[in-house]
């Protein structure tokens, strides 16, 4: 695939393309924590005065679509290379969360099998008080891309 990285970045990064909302369920928060091996009561005891979701909890949520409509690269063409979670405030049972998605960054790295294209999908999570609670960056990688300079023709 022949790609102008700068053109992609200029055209797509920073534009919100999806918004979903949901309410946090205490049973799911608890089961998630226990399955991961958490032992602290603030994550495993819903009666604890500071009960909250584990720090990485926002990673489990998805939007209605992984990429913007008409984005030239489809999510199924790549693989999940990792997730980064920034924790800004606790997520609590009953919180009404809004998650907004955007393409945060697009870049290439050269590996043994050639250039790899990284697309960073960012979701920002806010609660019912419009407080930022979490940011999740999901890195999607596609192998074997070739770069072309801005303005250079392509198929």
């Amino acid at each position: 695939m022949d790609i102008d990285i700068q053109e992609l970045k200029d055209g797509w990064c920073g534009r919100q393309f999806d918004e979903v909302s949901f309410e946090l369920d205490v049973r799911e928060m608890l089961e998630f924590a226990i399955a991961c091996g958490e032992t602290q009561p603030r994550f495993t005891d819903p009666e604890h005065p500071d009960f909250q979701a584990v720090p990485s909890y926002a990673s489990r949520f998805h939007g209605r679509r992984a990429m913007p409509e008409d984005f030239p690269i489809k999510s199924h063409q790549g693989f999940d290379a990792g997730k980064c979670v920034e924790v800004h405030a606790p997520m609590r049972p009953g919180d009404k969360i809004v998650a907004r998605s955007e393409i945060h960054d697009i870049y290439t790295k050269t590996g043994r099998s050639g250039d790899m294209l990284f697309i960073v999908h960012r979701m920002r999570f806010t609660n019912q008080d419009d407080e930022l609670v979490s940011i999740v960056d999901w890195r999607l990688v596609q192998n074997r891309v070739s770069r072309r300079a801005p303005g250079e023709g392509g198929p």
Partner: protein
Amino acid sequence: MSDSAPVRTFADVEFGEELPAFTPDVTMPTVRRFTDAAHMSWARFNDHEEARKQGLPGAIVPGIMSQGILAAMVNNWAPGCRIVKIDTIFRAALVVDSAPKCTGVVTDMDEEARRVEIDLTIANEAGETRVLGTAVVEL
């Protein structure tokens, strides 16, 4: 663990300190418990045979479960800490019903912010790193 577990403060931590080795439970019942909670009950996570048909070595542990396991290791090491950021790279598949080991080592310390950075890994029985990452933790 109760709230009476000793709180680890910034002063208790040494540069280069290794976190206690952590052996996570990635048996099928636990992975199914996770995928049920996370609404990810798909064959590649919950069924060895179906996962093999998809070209995988067996059912695999979801990447975000690996991330949660690493966060749990940090929280168990430092009760009362606040994980500010956790970044994980899913390098290769971690197979359900295997016996992986998690490690962590303190690689940076910021006294003013009372934060430490921890390098994290999950390796399989052969010692091959399957997941790696870093956590920034406030103490």
